[in-house]
């Protein structure tokens, strides 16, 4: 009886469930479901198409033109702008500067940051650990333009802090017009950039290290494995995914450098600090050669696209799970 006749309470619950349960929907036809799905993604597709893909296609078109912005005349010149790229020594020196930027950034912002993150995360005192993380991260909270301006004044040959400090500690022979001469300008800009970006990558690696199960470190300690070996055998392999991502992000970022160079040297002296971004800008906005600027933009796009594809490929193949 109990099984076949629900109690009053059960009846109440059943009634309540009946009252709140909506009537079963008629299943949508697959075509209608697809339309609803498309409607949901349509705004994002439109925004992407208008603000990302259309400009990309437009840029490809512009790179095949000789474009006079004043008269509005645009003449199709095929691949002439790309031919000009090949013979342009400043394009190559700009590309080299981007590569130099990438190499130094990899050394500091990836490999240096892993080491620093491991050191910080190895500190037992929680207050110290948090404090150091914050100290290293603070420069990343400063806008790159502001940091560039700040370092411009630090590097200033007469009034700058760097030469002043060198002078104060008896290293006045090392004082340089850091941004004023071809031999030191690019490295000085890259140094500023490392200062600004180092803390951010350190923080990301610290988060990745925190995700490593502590049992692994404890087991290694019990086995008498030292901290250096623990770093190479546990930390490094288990932050591999983050390392891969950071390598890609760092290289990709190095090919999109613009702000710091514009603020600190505008590509000078004598074009020694031109990078692809600033050389693009100079050709477009100073030399009025927008077609050639578009060709440089295409090169930047191809390089960063290639890096992004490598990133996708690596992420698919090297997933770390535990």
């Amino acid at each position, binding site marked *: 009886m109990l099984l076949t006749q629900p109690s009053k309470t059960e009846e109440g619950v059943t009634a309540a469930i009946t009252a709140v349960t909506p009537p079963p929907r008629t299943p949508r036809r697959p075509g209608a479901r697809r339309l609803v799905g498309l409607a949901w993604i349509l705004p994002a597709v439109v925004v992407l198409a208008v603000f990302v*893909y*259309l400009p990309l*296609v*437009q840029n*490809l*078109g*512009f790179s095949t*033109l000789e*474009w*006079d*912005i*004043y*008269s*509005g005349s*645009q003449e*199709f010149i095929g691949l002439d702008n790309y031919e000009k790229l090949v013979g342009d020594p400043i394009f190559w020196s700009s590309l080299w500067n981007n590569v130099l930027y990438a190499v130094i950034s990899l050394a500091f912002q990836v490999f240096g940051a892993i080491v620093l993150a491991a050191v910080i995360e190895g500190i037992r005192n929680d207050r110290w650990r948090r404090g150091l993380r914050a100290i290293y991260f603070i420069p990343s909270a400063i806008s790159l333009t502001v940091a560039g301006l700040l370092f411009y004044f630090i*590097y*200033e*040959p*007469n*009034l700058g802090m760097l030469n002043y400090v060198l002078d104060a500690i008896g290293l006045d022979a090392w004082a*340089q*017009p*850091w*941004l*004023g*001469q*071809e031999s030191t*300008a690019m490295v000085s800009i890259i140094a500023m950039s490392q200062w600004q970006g180092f803390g951010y990558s350190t923080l990301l690696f610290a988060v990745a290290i925190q995700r490593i199960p502590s049992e692994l470190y404890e087991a290694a300690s019990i086995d008498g494995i030292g901290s250096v070996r623990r770093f190479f055998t546990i930390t490094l392999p288990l932050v591999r995914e983050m390392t891969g991502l950071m390598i890609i992000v760092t290289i990709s970022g190095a090919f999109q450098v613009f702000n710091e160079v514009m603020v600190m*040297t*505008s590509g*000078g*002296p*004598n*074009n*020694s600090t031109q990078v692809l971004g600033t050389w693009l800008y*100079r050709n*477009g*906005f*100073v*030399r*009025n*050669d*927008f077609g050639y600027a578009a060709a440089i933009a295409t090169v930047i796009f191809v390089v960063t696209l290639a890096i992004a594809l490598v990133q996708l490929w690596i992420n698919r193949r090297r997933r770390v799970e535990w």
Partner: protein
Amino acid sequence: MHAQRFTALTALVAASALVLTGCAGGDAAPAADVTAEPEYSGTLSILTKFAGEPLGPYFETLAAEYEELHPEVTVELIQETDQSVKDKTKTLTASGALPDIYFTWAGNWAQNFIDGGLAADLTDVIEPGTEWGDTFGEASLSAFQVDGKYFGIPLYNNGKFMGYNTAIFDEVGIEVPTTFEELIESCAPIRAAGYEPIAFGNKDGWPALHYLQQLFAYNVPSDVLQDDFSPATATLDDPGYLESLEQFKTLVDECTDTGTGTNGVLYTTAQEALAGGRAAMYYQEILEFDTVTAEGNTLTPDNFGIFALPVPDGAAGEPGAIEGSPEGYLINAKSPQAALAVDFMKFATTLENATVLSSPPYGQPSTVVGAVTPETSSVAVFEGITKVNEASELVIWLDTVTVPEVADAWLAGGEALISGGSTPEQVLESVRNASDAAE
């Protein structure tokens, strides 16, 4: 081919075709009628290079007064700095969004807009002999004259002079140098007295071109120099160029404290060195005279003097030339508000407003006749503008008089010369190559 890929490819090709077709289209706006009676309604957009202090309030006040006179008119100001106005103007030009009134330099800068049909022909309203035209000095109007037509409204005149601290000169016991060689010789005693002889900052590249252009005017015969500005006629083989480059390098090495590091110093940092009494001299535009002697600075109007960059001994060019030119405004040839724009500029160049512009704190010597007087302007501004008016020839800035590719080569060359990265011969060779390529 897979259907989705085919669709994507078709879309890409269609988009490209659309873009390229769109590119080929022309903008066939009717020519602006600047002689029409203005309709006092709507929005008037103006691009200035007066952003920041102390110049910013000048156009703001003008706009407010004009709006008060014509309540149906709204004036929309886009105020940029000397550096940023270049990018802003080109961006607006490329996107077909030039304002009704926009700033221009004389020379190739203005020529581009005139050739591109973007500057309204103002001949009927501003040429000498018209009511408005007669309020300006004729030479300043001719700075924007092309093929007998007048396109620009010159707002103020400008010229480059060596500004100096008379107190430091007195303390050191030196006179104003009369030759370039004397100028170089004066640097050692000034430095011995504890001052930087000539403050110089070339972070932006163009300050070096100001020295070079003045030296070119002195060392290169005028007709040769004018031919060399245009890649079509340029040979750039006059020995005066090499002499000028060598003289400039001597000045940097002998007279600045920053020497080969001058490219790392801001123009304004150097300006402050003179204003703060730390430097004896600083090569500057008339527009800066009231800034270096502004209230609060160590340098006061009483101990501020100016002289033209001294002529080198045996120079083969024009010794009476002064580098400088008027700066002004163009009216967008495609503006539907062209008549109103002309009316606004007439308002901006009334004697009353021109006098305000020429007086401290603005200190921009107006091109309007009678606006710059010893009573209304500072002593230095009046002296500077008098020298400009008396100059045997005005030479336009090197970075605006020639085509951008050549100007850019001079810019990089000036920096390389300062840092020691290139010899004068190498600099000249790179400029010749740029000029040949631009031809």
